[in-house]
């Protein structure tokens, strides 16, 4: 079956010749018209549209945006804050980079509509430290929007006022976790907070109700405010509405970003037809479908079960290539859609070495407050690095599993899961490669590509 056409909503103007990131260009393309209309509507109507749309958060967890907004404590009398999570750091994910650099006003408009809908008077864009130009572009765009009356006092001539400031991170992955991000914005170490009982919607920034949304999610809100929740829900598939931006990297002919209605394209169509298939003379070996913490898939494995199609339960029997790229289907086969970062590995890659690379990342990024994660991620890194650079033992596979299995569910935040899923899934799918590694090493070419 041929792959569907791309539907570019969020990436409509990305890489368009002549499209620039200044407000003049944005307004010429119809920019801020949606905000102008939005501020004349009752805020609750906008929230209802987002609820109707079924929009799920694009940062990784896929939590329904309307539900998140619905949980906000509006009775406390405290100010409500909105934070744009622009701390894009999940390895394999690079969509927000292009929105911020090439179409910052789209993000600002989506943010302002969301602020108005939720009666927010102060918003922050938490942008990762490694986007210095991105931060400058956003600051310039905000100054332009402020001067034009779209941000700041009396937006579009109404009584509604809301400012947005840019806040730069400083290289810590954990700031993408929303309570870690809030701690960081408060000027502290980004140690995630214990939850439940209190979520940011009730006690967030400065112990006030706070909404944290991903960059792409807020851009979708702009589209929903323009076209309505029902129109948005018609794109994609039930429960996986709207478009998704997939970021494909690694061993494919045409890596890059591709936007499709959610669930309408399979992993095989994406990798073979859109991305041009494997590099010359190579075959696909493995793929991580939703950012590096998502569980890995091995080409050749099959997934069987029953799934809901409309009101019916139907059998499915999928190879990796057949899996529709949506939150639910990827969840059913034991991995996740996550942030949309698809990392592809071909038959030149040794899985022990690839895991050693991932483990080094998570060990570096653990915030360190929970012992199972701090020590577990460190030991998983030490073991896999030793296997590659020192002595590898056949029993290392069991040792690694023993460490990884003790982390998830025992930590304050989801980093515990994120750091153990790679090890667990690599061992489940490629266990033989780990057990055989002591032998494999003996025949390894001295100049082979290093991954750790």
């Amino acid at each position, binding site marked *: 079956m041929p792959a569907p056409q791309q539907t570019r909503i969020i990436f409509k103007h990305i890489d368009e010749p002549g499209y620039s990131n200044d407000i003049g260009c944005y307004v010429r393309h119809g920019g801020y018209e949606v905000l102008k209309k939005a501020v004349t509507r009752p805020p609750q109507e906008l929230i209802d549209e987002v609820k109707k749309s079924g929009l799920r958060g694009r940062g990784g967890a896929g939590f329904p945006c309307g539900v998140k907004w619905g949980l906000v404590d509006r009775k406390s009398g405290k100010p409500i804050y909105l934070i744009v999570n622009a701390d894009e750091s999940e390895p394999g994910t690079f969509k927000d980079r292009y929105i911020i650099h090439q179409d910052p006003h789209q993000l600002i408009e989506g943010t302002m509509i969301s602020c108005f809908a939720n009666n927010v008077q102060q918003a922050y864009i938490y942008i990762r430290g490694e986007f210095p130009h991105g931060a400058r572009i956003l600051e310039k765009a905000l100054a332009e929007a402020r001067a034009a009356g779209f941000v700041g006092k009396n937006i579009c001539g109404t009584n509604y006022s809301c400012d947005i400031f840019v806040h730069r991170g400083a290289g810590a992955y954990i700031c993408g976790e929303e309570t870690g991000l809030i701690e960081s914005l408060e000027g*502290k170490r980004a140690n995630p907070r214990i939850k439940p009982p209190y979520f940011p919607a009730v006690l967030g920034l400065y112990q006030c109700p706070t909404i944290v949304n991903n960059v792409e999610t807020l851009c979708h809100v702009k589209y929903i405010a323009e076209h309505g929740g029902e129109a948005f829900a018609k794109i994609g598939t039930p429960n996986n509405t709207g478009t998704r931006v997939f970021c494909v*990297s690694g061993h494919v002919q045409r890596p890059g970003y591709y936007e499709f209605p959610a669930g309408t394209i399979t992993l095989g169509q994406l990798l073979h037809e859109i991305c041009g298939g494997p590099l010359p003379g190579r075959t696909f070996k493995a793929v991580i479908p939703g950012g590096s913490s998502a569980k890995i898939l091995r080409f050749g494995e099959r997934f069987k079960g029953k799934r809901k199609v409309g009101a019916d339960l139907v059998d499915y029997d999928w190879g990796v290539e057949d899996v529709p790229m949506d939150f639910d289907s990827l969840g059913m086969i034991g991995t996740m859609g996550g942030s949309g970062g698809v990392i592809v590995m071909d038959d030149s890659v040794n899985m022990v070495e690839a895991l050693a*690379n991932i483990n080094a990342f998570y060990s570096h990024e653990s915030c360190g407050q929970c012992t199972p994660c701090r020590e577990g991620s460190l030991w998983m890194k030490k073991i896999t690095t030793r296997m590659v650079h020192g002595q590898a033992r056949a029993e290392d596979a069991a040792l690694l599993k023993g460490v990884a299995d003790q982390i998830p569910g025992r930590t304050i935040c989801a980093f515990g899961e994120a750091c153990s899923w790679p090890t667990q899934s690599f061992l489940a799918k490629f266990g033989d490669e780990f057990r055989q590694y002591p032998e494999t090493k003996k025949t390894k070419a001295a100049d082979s590509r290093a991954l750790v």
Partner: protein
Amino acid sequence: MNLKAETLSRIDEVITHYPVKRSATLPLLHLIQEDVGHIPEEAITWIADKLGLEPINVYEVVTFYPMFRRKPIGRRHIKVCRTLSCALLGGYKTCATFEKEFNTHCGEVSPDGEVTVEFVECLASCGTAPVVLIDDDLHEKVDEAKAKQISDQIKAEAKARK
């Protein structure tokens, strides 16, 4: 603290962005590091005074975030992405090329003081791997040949300055 007038005015401005002064800790550290080149000891007490905090509150932040450094670096800062997508396309060779070209090791200042080469974690440009952030500029698809070419350019600029 001997900070530029512009830095001081930007510091005063950024503090107004937050209802709680402590939130300005990261922005102040960024501004001081951009001005001074690193975070000297006195900056920690200076920021603490400025924001009404204890020095430990600032110190724990400096030691938590990888981008803040306690020591001076080379004139140019070469950050090579180490994470999976870049490594799959030869990021380790890219880093080794920079090390060789400047006769240095990861994390150290080169003997001529021109560069500090460093491995960093994911720079979020995985589709154009391997990527390198030099000062504020992202360089894409930096294979060994391109790393050599960039190194030559940095060396030529250094020579022209002398």
